[in-house]
């Protein structure tokens, strides 16, 4: 997976997390879960934005190193989003993906 492909997939994950479907599903959830989603989603948006800016500066050189791990993370989030009836499980997978992404951003920056 190229750097561009990876960023495109992360953007797709963010787009799904910010879709009307996810927004509506969480509107009915307890305040604690809504808070967790908002925190994690904002974190993902900021990380993707940082990677995008880094790409514009063409410095995200070591992205490939965590390629496989990220692939797994993305697949996990997408799988959970496909079964939005379990929002809490989706949040757990998202939290794991964010952990990997945070390391990517450190390397890219």
């Amino acid at each position, binding site marked *: 997976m190229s750097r561009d492909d990876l960023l495109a997939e992360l953007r797709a994950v963010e*787009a799904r997390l910010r879709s009307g479907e996810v927004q509506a599903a969480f509107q009915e959830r307890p305040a604690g879960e809504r808070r967790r989603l908002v925190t994690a989603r904002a974190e993902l948006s900021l990380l993707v934005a940082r990677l995008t800016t880094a790409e514009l500066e063409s410095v995200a050189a070591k992205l490939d190193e965590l390629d496989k791990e990220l692939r797994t993370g993305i697949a996990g989030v997408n799988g959970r989003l496909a079964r939005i009836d379990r929002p809490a499980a989706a949040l757990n997978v998202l939290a794991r993906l964010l952990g990997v992404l945070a390391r990517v951003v450190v390397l890219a920056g």
Partner: protein
Amino acid sequence: MLPPTHRSPWPAAVIVVVAALATPACTSSAPYRRLAEAGAAYAGAVGSLSTAAATLAVDGSSARLLQDDALANVDLQTLRRFDEEDSHRLAVLARLATHARLMRRYFSLVGDLAAGRAGRTTATALGRLAAALDTAGEALRRTGAGAGVAAAVGPVQTGAGFYGRCLARKELTARAGTLRRELATQTDVLAALEQSMRRDAELLAAVRRQWLVVDPLLAEAPVADPERWMADRRALLDAAPALDELAAAARAAASLATALETLAGGRLDLARLDEVVTDVEAIGAALDAAGLRREGQP
């Protein structure tokens, strides 16, 4: 040996001068004017694109914050982190815009040369601009994969009128390597920019659609302003396919670079210039359809 009646009445030196002036490079300045116009139009489009990308990036962040706030109150620290990220992006885009402005000014001056409107001040300005372009391009390349190569060419000595027109070719040929390298850098940046703009625009459109179209329609009360609701829905649907045309920017940069390459090879490829103009028009149409072109922008 020719008989005396067949000897040319012109001295040999005059024949050489006339032959030199009659070379294809100097017989018509029209192709170089077209190249200069295409270059200026391209650079203008890149400038507009940079501005639009900045608008999209900031508005996209705002939409995300508002979307999050609708689910759980966003705190000040999160807002500040988005502010910081946007400021960083704006700084990168400002560098691209500066580069585009310099390039536009450069091609405008080459157009002056080709049209015979130039004097010595234009030549000096061209030399300074080419050096500034190289510096700005270096700033873009510095962190990137492309290696920076210093290539500022000294100012071209010029006169006016016919001789000045001939110098448009000389100037472009001398600077072709520098310009091609700048365009190669821009091709990469523009391809990345297109992706980020598309992402921001799509997210923004999705959030706007939710606010302006879905929520009012699904609410129990009838839509308060049906005309406005219809216009919003139409505008959002119209904007979506226009985003595909943002890819025209990277194509235009590549076509312009190829045209300059053919110039260096001694034969300017006018078809490439037509492609540049077509792509520049596509960029303008896309920005218009997405409501992202500011008044007065090319």
